[in-house]
């Protein structure tokens, strides 16, 4: 009963607060009037009576507060006033407010965006049913179990037939990116297609929403296609009757079998527009069990562990090794699909996570520092207000509300920063980090960051108020003008905060420095080509209109026509750009020379097919013999050019030109030796290259040669001219993915670039924060010691010595921070090891540069306060 009336009364007072306030004022005024009237009746003068009655009231406002307390609405009333007061106080010091809010925003935004990225890429399960059952199957060599390679169709068909541990297994033709030209005339464009085996949609357990998947009987290059949701919308306006209709790709008519659901993403490929059945007809390939090009994924049966499946696979591999003598060392290994997908990118993301955590700590420290300074600045204000009768509780609450106001503003700004930071991460990381495109701000993480940052704002904002509430107001007021002793204690705390900031910033600087040094090393790596001034683009010739003879002729013609353009030095084509990875590794054996037919002379040759003047275009030097010319066509015996490494391995001690070897299904005569070319941007070298003239090799398959054009002019201008040349030859063709060769080669480094850009950003933020912290702590110290400086100067110290004193203080703090940071860098060196190239993680030059950089920034941060210290007028402080 009583509890109920209590609640009703409280609710009522909240709702009718305004009326209550008015009535309370009236009631109290009435009381005062009555009091005064009574005094007057007793013969006291009117004015005196008023004064006394007011006195008796013990302060009208105070009574009102007490009544509000009793009513339970005081917090509302005060809250409103406190927020208004907080806003006024903050507005009076906009610099402080801006820095605090900015700090919070960077902290919240940066952490949320990065944590969301890590969450999306590393932590979220794959977007398929029972993702734990999905595995990646790699070819491996029984002698080198760590190898992970692509699979031959021969082995794949055996796995599919025999593996009882798999409920389904699928092959993806990802070895080289497949595309198709659709549309006609000006509307012609290239789409990404992915040839897959029939079980593909079973493995991922995402069937087409309308229509059907492929059948095993269609794994023979059958002209059927499954469309992506987007392509379906675009080509058929989203009409369900599209199934059964035809779509012309590369000039060939395909029947639409089905349409995939909106948002379906392939586990291993990105942005696929259409799926076609891969050609798995047995015996089609000349190299059979020795020709690897399939990426294989499988779904385990629900009751089968990956270890059991691996055991079965090992048994099967032994049987297969006996069946196929050319692949006697072949075996296979299983990795969980998710690990396989994120494996490469987990390191950069983990480092990012570490970096952003450091930054978050730094930001909290900075905020603490800011609020502590502000708190000690206001210690006197609080003391004064306490002496004038303000309640402690009230003072504390007021600071709390001020911090809260700051935190809310920072949170709002933080959400905005998070949004933009996320967009930036997606933009930078797309292409090098899988699954990033699905990135959204993770609400739980946002709440977490908001909580951490807001709590630190509240906590550190409250600390000085609590301290102020504990001390006797008189003590602080008496310290007026003198260097406060309590300030001294705080000073030490703040110096340590700055030390920790310097240390954290130093660690990040070292990380960024190591990556920058790695990049320099990578740039310095001799690749064997001169990629500057070279334009590269893909040029695909549809089978429907180009047979092998037409292809052979076209690629030569287009190179000649492009070479005739002004400024162009030479043009050509190649089946795989230099320094972009392995391709067509075929067993290559010398047929003549000292190692003729010997096992020892056998190399894993990197085979490339070239057209036009490829070697001149990319800058590969001819060392011996000659380059290909128009006479190396189908009418003469097969000829090859090999690299120096291949020549030295296969024909040691003799001249390679004139010798012959076997690769790619038959004997070849060597007509030239060229310089070596690295296999990737890090300069990895293989066992040697074998180059085939496209004129002779066009019949093997549609090679889709990547064109390279060396020019002395601008690449942008060249691109337009080349496009016109192609259009004049065949307006249906697409100049696909034109880009500078430097960029095409740099592609493999995208991940490192991504990490570098992020880490550099973090390091800069950290450096800025540390400098800000140092600046703050020194400025504050200078302010506290104005008197001391005044005395020193009065006693004859000159400005220079004062300045040195302050600078020295800043440098000592920095030095301690750097030493601690150095220890941190040593501790973290193993984490960074995977990211660096050609430098030790404790490279003294990098460490020294980071320390010097830190010191320079610190000196800048310390200079202004040091300068200000010298501007103290002795007379003004000593008075």
């Amino acid at each position, binding site marked *: 009963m009583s509890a109920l*009336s209590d609640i009703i009364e409280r609710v009522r007072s909240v709702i009718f607060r305004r009326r209550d306030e008015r*009535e309370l004022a009236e009631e*109290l005024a009435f009381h005062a009037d009555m009091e005064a009237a009574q005094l007057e009746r007793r013969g006291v003068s009117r004015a005196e009576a008023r004064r006394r009655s007011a006195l008796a009231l013990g302060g009208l406002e*105070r*009574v009102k507060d007490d009544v509000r307390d009793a009513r339970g609405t005081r917090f509302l009333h005060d809250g409103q006033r406190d927020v208004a007061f907080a806003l006024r106080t903050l507005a009076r010091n906009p610099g402080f407010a801006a820095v605090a809010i900015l700090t919070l925003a960077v902290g919240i935004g940066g952490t949320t965006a990065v944590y969301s990225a890590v969450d999306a890429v590393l932590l979220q399960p794959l977007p398929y049913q029972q993702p734990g059952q999905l595995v990646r199957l790699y070819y491996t060599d029984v002698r080198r179990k760590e190898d992970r390679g692509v699979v031959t169709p021969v082995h794949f068909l055996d796995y599919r037939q025999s593996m009882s541990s798999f409920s389904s297994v699928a092959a993806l033709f990802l070895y080289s990116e497949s595309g198709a030209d659709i549309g006609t005339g000006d509307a012609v464009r290239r789409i990404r297609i992915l040839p897959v085996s029939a079980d593909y949609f079973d493995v991922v357990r995402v069937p087409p929403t309308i229509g059907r998947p492929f059948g095993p009987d269609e794994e023979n290059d059958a002209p059927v296609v499954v469309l992506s949701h987007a392509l379906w919308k675009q080509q058929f306006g989203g009409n369900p009757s599209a199934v059964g209709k035809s779509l012309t790709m590369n000039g060939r008519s395909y029947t639409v079998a089905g349409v995939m659901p909106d948002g379906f993403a392939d586990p291993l490929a990105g942005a696929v527009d259409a799926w076609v059945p891969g050609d798995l007809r047995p015996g089609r390939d000349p190299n059979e069990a020795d020709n690897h090009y399939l990426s294989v994924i499988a779904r385990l049966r629900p009751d089968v562990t990956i270890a059991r499946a691996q055991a079965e696979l090992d048994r099967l591999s032994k049987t297969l090794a006996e069946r196929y003598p050319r692949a006697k060392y072949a075996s296979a290994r299983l990795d969980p699909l998710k690990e396989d997908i994120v494996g490469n990118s987990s390191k950069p993301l983990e480092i990012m996570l570490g970096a952003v955590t450091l930054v978050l700590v730094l930001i909290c420290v900075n905020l603490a520092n800011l609020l502590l300074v502000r708190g000690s600045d206001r210690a006197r204000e609080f003391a004064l207000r306490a002496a004038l009768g303000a309640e402690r509780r009230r003072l504390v609450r007021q600071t709390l509300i001020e911090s809260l106001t700051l935190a809310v503003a920072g949170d709002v700004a933080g959400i905005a920063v998070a949004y933009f930071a996320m967009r930036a991460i997606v933009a930078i990381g797309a292409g090098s980090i899988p699954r990033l495109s699905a990135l959204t701000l993770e609400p739980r993480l946002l709440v977490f960051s908001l909580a951490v940052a807001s709590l630190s704002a509240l906590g550190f904002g409250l600390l000085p108020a609590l301290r102020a509430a504990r001390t006797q107001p008189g003590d602080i007021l008496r310290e007026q003008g003198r260097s406060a002793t309590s300030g001294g204690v705080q000073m030490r705390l703040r110096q340590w905060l700055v030390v920790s900031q310097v240390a954290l910033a130093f660690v990040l600087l070292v990380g960024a420095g190591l990556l920058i040094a790695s990049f320099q090393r990578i740039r310095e790596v001799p690749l064997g080509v001169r990629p500057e001034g070279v334009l590269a683009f893909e040029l695909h010739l549809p089978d429907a209109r180009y047979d092998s003879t037409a292809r052979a002729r076209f690629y030569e013609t287009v190179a000649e026509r492009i070479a005739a353009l002004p400024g162009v030095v030479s043009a050509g084509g190649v089946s795989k750009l230099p320094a972009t990875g392995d391709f067509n590794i075929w067993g290559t054996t010398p047929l003549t020379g000292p190692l003729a037919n010997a096992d020892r002379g056998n190399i894993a040759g990197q085979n490339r097919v070239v057209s036009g003047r490829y070697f001149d275009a990319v800058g590969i030097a001819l060392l011996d013999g000659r380059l290909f010319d128009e006479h190396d066509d189908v009418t003469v015996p097969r000829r090859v050019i090999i690299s120096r490494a291949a020549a030295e391995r296969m024909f040691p001690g003799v001249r390679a030109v004139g010798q012959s070897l076997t690769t790619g299904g038959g004997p070849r005569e060597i007509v030239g030796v060229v310089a070596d070319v690295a296999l990737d941007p890090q300069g990895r070298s293989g066992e040697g290259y074998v180059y085939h003239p496209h004129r002779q090799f066009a019949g093997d398959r549609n090679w889709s040669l990547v064109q390279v054009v060396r020019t002395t002019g601008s690449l942008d201008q060249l691109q337009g001219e080349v496009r016109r040349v192609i259009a004049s030859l065949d307006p249906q063709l697409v100049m696909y993915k034109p880009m500078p060769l430097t960029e095409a080669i740099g592609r493999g480094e995208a991940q490192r670039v991504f990490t570098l850009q992020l880490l550099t950003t973090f390091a800069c933020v950290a450096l800025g924060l540390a400098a800000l912290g140092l600046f703050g702590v020194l400025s504050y110290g200078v302010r506290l010691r104005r008197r001391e400086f005044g005395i020193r100067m009065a006693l004859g110290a000159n400005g220079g010595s004062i300045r040195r004193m302050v600078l020295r203080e800043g440098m000592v703090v920095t030095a301690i921070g750097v030493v601690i940071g150095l220890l941190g860098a040593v501790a973290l060196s193993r984490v960074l090891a995977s990211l660096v190239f050609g430098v030790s993680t404790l490279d003294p030059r990098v460490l020294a540069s980071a320390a010097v950089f830190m010191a320079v920034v610190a000196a800048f941060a310390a200079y202004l306060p040091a300068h200000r210290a010298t501007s103290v007028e002795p007379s003004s402080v000593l008075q």
Partner: protein
Amino acid sequence: MAGEPGELLQGTLEMMVLKTLSLEPMHGWGIAQRIQQMSKDVFLVTQGSLYPALIRMKRRGWLTTSWRVTENSRRARYYELTPAGRRQLGLEEASWLRASAAVNWVMTGRLLPDGGRA
């Protein structure tokens, strides 16, 4: 010291307010005056303690309020006991009498008539 208006004993203010209001509905100033008079100027009730107490008591459902016009034709808020307030007054009176008697016994130093032990 004696003769000066004194501080109220903790917790007795509400009881005295209840007692005052049990006679007739009254406004705040009237309550303060009545207590001062009845205590022969020993207790001085300030606004600072009176009005919060009135609000608390109202919240507990012991009082109701209404705006009325005084004999000097001014508007004032009048407080009136509810049945619950009346019951509360009974309870507090009883426990006060018991407690004050006990305090008296202690302060006058006399042993209880039949509780003494020689």
